[in-house]
């Protein structure tokens, strides 16, 4: 069963400037006198501070906050990419994080090859990729272009492929940074229907957005973030409105 439990999670980035990142400085400092874990020369950015969050099946969480409030970092912790620098994050279930749908796509590869590559990363076997290939190809409506290198595509066409393959999975936990909009009017409606189906099927949804309307449509819980902390929690209307 899918679940997410964050306990007192903090994420702290060391920002190494060119100097402190060099091996020479590292060695010199060690020789100079013991290990200094809180060297003032290393700037630290607190991207998340003591975040507690529990999500269970059926939860549709809206994530709101200004730019730099920590939404994306939180999504990355939820995806498992960032393991918290302190605290504990337990994520059970298959996660699909559509934070960057063009992830790992290569212009020199054909549309089909890119789909196969993305499928492999999502943990699909070759056979599963082959099974879904036709469905994705149908959805993209690119016809023969799918067998040409992606560098020949317009940006809208690349996005169709990226979106098609990203939404062909069946995750337990779905992470979205803004509701992705692709393509012209006709295609956008089709894309919207596809992502709605994906959201319906996912056991847990986390959606970061600035649009009150979208959040009210798809979510049943909300948290507001500020300066890396959760500052408000509750129903969508009271937190977002």
């Amino acid at each position, binding site marked *: 069963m899918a679940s997410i439990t964050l306990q007192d999670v903090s994420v702290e980035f060391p920002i190494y400037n060119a100097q402190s990142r060099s091996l020479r400085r590292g060695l010199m400092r060690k020789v100079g006198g013991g290990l200094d874990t809180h060297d003032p020369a290393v700037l630290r950015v607190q991207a998340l501070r003591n975040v507690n969050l529990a999500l269970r099946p059926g939860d549709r969480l809206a994530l709101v906050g200004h730019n730099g409030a920590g939404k994306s970092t939180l999504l990355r912790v939820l995806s498992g990419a960032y393991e918290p*620098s302190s605290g504990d994050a337990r994520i059970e279930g298959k996660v699909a994080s559509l934070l960057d749908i063009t992830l790992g796509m290569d212009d020199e590869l054909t549309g089909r090859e890119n789909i196969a590559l993305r499928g492999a990363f999502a943990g699909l076997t070759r056979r599963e990729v082959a099974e879904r290939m036709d469905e994705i190809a149908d959805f993209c409506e690119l016809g023969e272009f799918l067998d040409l290198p992606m560098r020949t595509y317009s940006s809208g066409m690349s996005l169709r492929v990226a979106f098609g393959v990203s939404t062909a999975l069946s995750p337990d936990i779905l992470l979205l940074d803004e509701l992705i909009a692709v393509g012209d009017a006709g295609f956008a409606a089709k894309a919207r229907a596809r992502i709605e189906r994906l959201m319906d099927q996912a056991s847990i949804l986390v959606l970061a957005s600035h649009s009150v309307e979208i959040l009210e449509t798809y979510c049943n819980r909300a948290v507001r973030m500020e300066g890396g902390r959760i500052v408000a929690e509750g129903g969508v209307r009271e937190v977002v409105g």
Partner: protein
Amino acid sequence: MFDALSISPRDVRLARQDLAGGVTAWPIWTHLGLLDIRQRYRRSRLGQFWITLSMALFVGGIGVVNASLFRAAAADYIPYLAASYIVWTLMSGLANDAAQVYVQAAPFLRQAAIPRTVFVLRVLARNAVAFAHNVVILPVVFALFGVWPGATALLALPGLALLAAAAFCAVHAVGVLATRFRDLPQIMQNAVQMAFFLTPVMWRPEQLGSNVASALSFNPFAVYLSLVVEPLLGRAPPASSWAAGVAMLLPLAGVAWLLFARFRARIPYWL
């Protein structure tokens, strides 16, 4: 430099999971490794056979020049050069790619929980593919110069296995360090270049005095090189060479494990 090297049981568990998860995700890293090669030669007519052709040209050119320069018999020198240079190319490719392993994978590592080991194995796969393209030259060279290694050549397989195990550990260790310290890729490049001159690739160990030659057993490149090249030329490596190969692997594996277990989680933060 680092927080103290304290490794919690949780770190150990996650590092084990990463290793196991990485190995079992072989469809991903074989796919990526093959793509890396195909991509490099995309849109060229000969494609990846440029690897083979470049190697053939190099061995042919340098072989003829050096054979006359060192006054070695070409029939003796060129087969040695071909074998040693092909194995050297494998090792130096691994060493140089090691420094880029996680930096290159940054977009993936920042978005999803993918085992780090996947990218280490991708580097191994990529270099194995290039090696396979190069190694086809050997039968041709051997046929031209009438070298027949016989069944002894099969001993190159355990040699390659040891080399791969050492590379697996080294790429893990160098990858962590080079992601944190961005001078390391440059340092590596220079170190590899230096190692080229200190390793019997263009020259043969017999050309050194016996005192100096024994120093070669401290050069990991020379040790693993001899474990593959000697069998290919039909000479079984002495037990001391095998012992040196195993003896170097153990501390390397230890260091790699410590670095990986301790800093595995930090890698995405450093990207």
